[in-house]
């Protein structure tokens, strides 16, 4: 993310960091793995979090560079407001649709954008803090990297059969929640 961050924009530059995570997907015939996924988009949120120039709408020019339009622009307050509700609601909806409650869930793996958004989601589905993966203090928001980086860090504690909820909210707006039945014990 640092390549598109304006380190003169104090509201935005404090949030983001660089990092990448990866997962391997393989077929399973015993029912383990991804059970369900709810994904959403709402383009009306695009105005609050975007990059102004560099696309076909406003190609790069001397003017766009001078106006600092090749950086991530964020209007933090509306994004925060939508994220708190969006991530919590969709996580609750996912559990409901799978006839589960927080008691059935071993771990919540939330996108790491803001501790208060994470807390709101955990509270909404009734998960205590010790069941929520949080490493935002070390890495900030690595956008698409946050969830797999958490899984990587907590991999040793995950057990075969654990029900895990992954939840995210981001620019677009885009958001979603995914239910995973963990497929292996760490060796």
């Amino acid at each position, binding site marked *: 993310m640092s390549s598109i961050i304006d380190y003169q924009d104090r509201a935005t530059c404090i949030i983001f960091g660089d990092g990448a995570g990866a997962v391997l997907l393989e*077929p399973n015939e015993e029912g383990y793995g991804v059970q369900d996924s709810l994904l959403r988009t709402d383009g009306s949120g695009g105005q609050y979090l975007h990059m102004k120039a560099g696309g076909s709408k406003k190609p790069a020019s001397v003017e766009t560079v001078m106006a600092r339009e090749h950086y991530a622009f964020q209007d933090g307050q509306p994004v925060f407001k939508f994220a708190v509700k969006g991530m919590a609601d969709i996580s609750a909806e996912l559990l409901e649709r799978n006839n589960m409650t927080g008691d059935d869930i071993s771990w919540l793996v939330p996108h790491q954008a803001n*501790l208060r958004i994470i807390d709101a989601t955990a509270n909404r589905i009734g998960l205590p803090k010790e069941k929520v993966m949080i490493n935002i203090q070390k890495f900030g928001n690595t956008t*698409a990297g946050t969830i797999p980086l958490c899984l990587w860090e907590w991999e040793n504690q995950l057990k075969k059969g654990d029900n895990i909820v992954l939840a995210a909210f981001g620019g677009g707006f885009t958001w979603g929640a*995914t239910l995973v039945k963990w497929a292996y014990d760490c060796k």
Partner: protein
Amino acid sequence: MSNKKITAAITAVSGYVPDDILSNFDLEKMVDTNDEWIRSRTGISERRILKGEGLATSDMVVPAVRQLCEKRGISPEEIDCLVVGTVTPDMIFPSTSNIACDKLGAKNAWGFDILAACSGFLFSLTTGVSLIESGRYKK
């Protein structure tokens, strides 16, 4: 042939973060902010920054995927498809997946980037799951 429904399981996890740390105290020297303000509002104390001439997203993807293959004991040549969720591709095109596959030696893979900002992982995961569930791809 088994008639059991195929699900897509995560069978290995890996990650890569660059070594360079940018702390709240470093940011205090760059913009008008302070450690207490950042921590109380976001929970963040520090973040990592990829530094170095010419380094790009694929330079984080490649070590992450290489480690993933090592953990699972497979060769990059066994990868069928590499889906990369990113808003910071190396270039507008070709895709970061394409570039990473070349660096990895994932000669039998196809792939593409998914642009879904902070939901990029969930959108990519669900896409990958659909490819596995189709029965057509194994890794």
